[in-house]
């Protein structure tokens, strides 16, 4: 009987060791909160961009500038002032997508100016495009407002606890007057603690 118990325990341990070495791949919920590490992650991107868009479209300034039609905006970059490598273009892309889907504003994409210019020059000069379908130069819409911002962080680490504070600041500038007509900040604090036991 004792031998049987020992064999069972050894069997369970062997099974645990074998299963510990295997790799499991599965799909996750892209909208769930993610707490794998304390570094900037998908939840921070979704949370900051969502709250920033809500703040902008709820603001009376947005009601005012969109009262006579959908104003044209362009997004300048969000400057990454953190110590991490963060793709801030993902933040601006998410915000621009949500603002466009709200139907309140329009955007021009300044990152594609060179490609657009090249295409328009080809249409004008190559002699291969039907003049009836040719897109004329000088007909593009100019942006009236510029959306831009900064992402900063403060990191504290004492070896046991790591505390990271992120602050996203966004501004909307009226290009005609140079005035800032809207600004907001979203903040996130994350903490990781090393456990005394466990791994």
């Amino acid at each position, binding site marked *: 009987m004792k031998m049987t118990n020992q064999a069972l325990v050894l069997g369970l341990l062997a099974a645990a060791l074998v299963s510990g070495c295997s790799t499991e791949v599965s799909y996750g919920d892209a909208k*769930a909160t993610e*707490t794998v590490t304390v570094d900037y992650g998908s*939840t921070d991107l979704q949370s900051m961009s969502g709250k920033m868009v809500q703040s902008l479209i709820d603001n009376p300034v947005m*009601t005012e500038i969109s009262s006579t039609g959908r104003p044209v905006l362009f997004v300048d970059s969000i400057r990454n002032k953190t110590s991490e490598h963060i793709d801030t273009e993902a933040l601006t892309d998410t915000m621009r997508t949500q603002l466009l889907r709200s139907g309140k504003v329009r955007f021009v994409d300044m990152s594609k100016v060179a490609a657009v210019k090249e295409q328009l020059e080809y249409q004008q000069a190559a002699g291969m495009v039907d003049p009836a379908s040719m897109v004329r130069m000088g007909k593009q819409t100019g942006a009236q407002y510029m959306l831009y911002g900064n992402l900063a962080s403060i990191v504290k680490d004492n070896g046991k606890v790591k505390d990271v504070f992120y602050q996203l600041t966004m501004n909307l500038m009226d290009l005609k007057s140079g005035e800032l007509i809207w600004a907001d900040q979203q903040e996130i604090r994350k903490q990781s603690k090393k456990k005394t036991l466990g791994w």
Partner: protein
Amino acid sequence: MKSIALALLFCGLVACSSTNGIALSGAEGQESRLQVDNAGMKQRLELDLAQQQRSAGDGRLQIAVRLKSHIAYDQSLQYRVTWFDAAGMPVEPDSTSWQPLILHGGEQRVIQASALLPQAAAFYFSVRDVVKD
């Protein structure tokens, strides 16, 4: 031998965390309704609709939901708002994600949310515990 089996069972139970919670739903002109899928959470968290209105500028539905903690320690929660039109179809269903929320002991907090589009006529505000990765 029994103790080993119990220990293994306990480890298995600890590894699984509950993903259901409580939710508040409402529509224009109707009383909000609380849905409880996690009785334990209902004991420690109170959820009610503080305000529901259409924005003056563009007529988008806005809600303010009050969360009140009934316990003395912090709760790591996450919440999400889903919007529906008058026919009950989801409005921009992929635009909302779970948002983290730390509710301190005894704290009361009001979460405000606005629909992205004016056709939203009803909402579903759900809260659950943070699921650790």
